């Protein structure tokens, strides 16, 4: 462990140099790096494998309905080597919520992506096993969307109280 832990801003600046053909942005309120949907796998790979980052631990992956025609996926990373954290965000439009899967990079993401698909409803391209995980396989809709309406009946059972 030679180098110091990088701040999110420093990580952003370095990433921006590496991936100059993608449009990364930095949000200093949170602070987090906003990554375009098609770049997330390359960025994730770099963050995990490059020695100066070594983010080998995906703490959490959350699907969010932003409420304004977009969905978001938030990645919280941690590095065992440097003991620092980093937040990544991907924002996708609601009509076409597709982004690349990172399930092969961090195995944690496998189930988390299935959960995000199940509850919020974005599609992870390249996921090895893209199914619902919590809701029944024949359930319709994605319950954590802000505009979700609970169905009256499921399989002959009344759902509302």
């Amino acid at each position, binding site marked *: 462990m030679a180098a110091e832990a990088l701040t999110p801003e420093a990580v952003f600046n370095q990433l921006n140099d590496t991936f100059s053909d993608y449009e990364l942005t930095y949000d200093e309120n949170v602070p987090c790096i906003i990554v375009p949907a098609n770049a997330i796998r390359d960025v994730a790979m770099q963050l995990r494998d490059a020695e100066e980052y070594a983010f080998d631990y995906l703490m959490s992956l959350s699907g969010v309905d932003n409420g304004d025609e977009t969905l978001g996926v938030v990645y919280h990373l941690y590095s065992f080597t440097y003991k620092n954290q980093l937040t990544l965000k991907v924002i996708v439009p609601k009509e076409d919520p597709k982004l690349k899967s990172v399930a092969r990079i961090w195995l944690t993401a496998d189930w988390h992506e299935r959960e995000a698909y199940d509850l919020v409803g974005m599609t992870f391209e390249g996921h090895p096993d893209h199914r619902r995980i919590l809701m029944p396989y024949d359930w319709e809709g994605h319950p954590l969307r802000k505009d*979700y309406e*609970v169905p009256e009946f*499921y*399989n002959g*059972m*009344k*759902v*509302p109280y």
Partner: protein
Amino acid sequence: MGLLSQQFDNSNIVITSVEGVLNWARLCSLWQMSFGLACCAIEMMAASASHYDIMRFGVLPRPSPRQCDVMIVAGTVTLKMATRVKRLYEQMAEPRYVVSMGSCSNCGGPYWEHGYHVLKGVDRVIPVDVYVPGCPPRPEALLEGWMRLQEKVRDFTLVKDSSKQTTEKQVA
């Protein structure tokens, strides 16, 4: 038998009804299906562990529904689980009883309003004999529910419905 021990001078005969003996035997050995759903299951486990010792009521947890008399629905029944609960109930041999333990299986409990995946009461899929309220009910409450169930078993009758009997006689 504690009440009767040492009460007789020599070996003796007790006269009672068949019903009485059978029901007494059954109510003292109600076997329970060991099957927990959620938080209430922990209290159910506590009830069968050292402090509360539900086994003194003759309760033996059995994993297989075929060997059980009572199903304790301990916890939240979700829509995904409901069909399984129903199947388990159907697999039990008659006569069978259901104790619904905790608010969740009584009526949906804390999840009644926004629980899009929670069945609001297990009585929507299977018949329930005893409801034990609480979130979670204390083990004492479960024991109380158990005694209520024993009362119910004690009143079980082998005699056909008397009104039916007369009609049958009349037909004969």
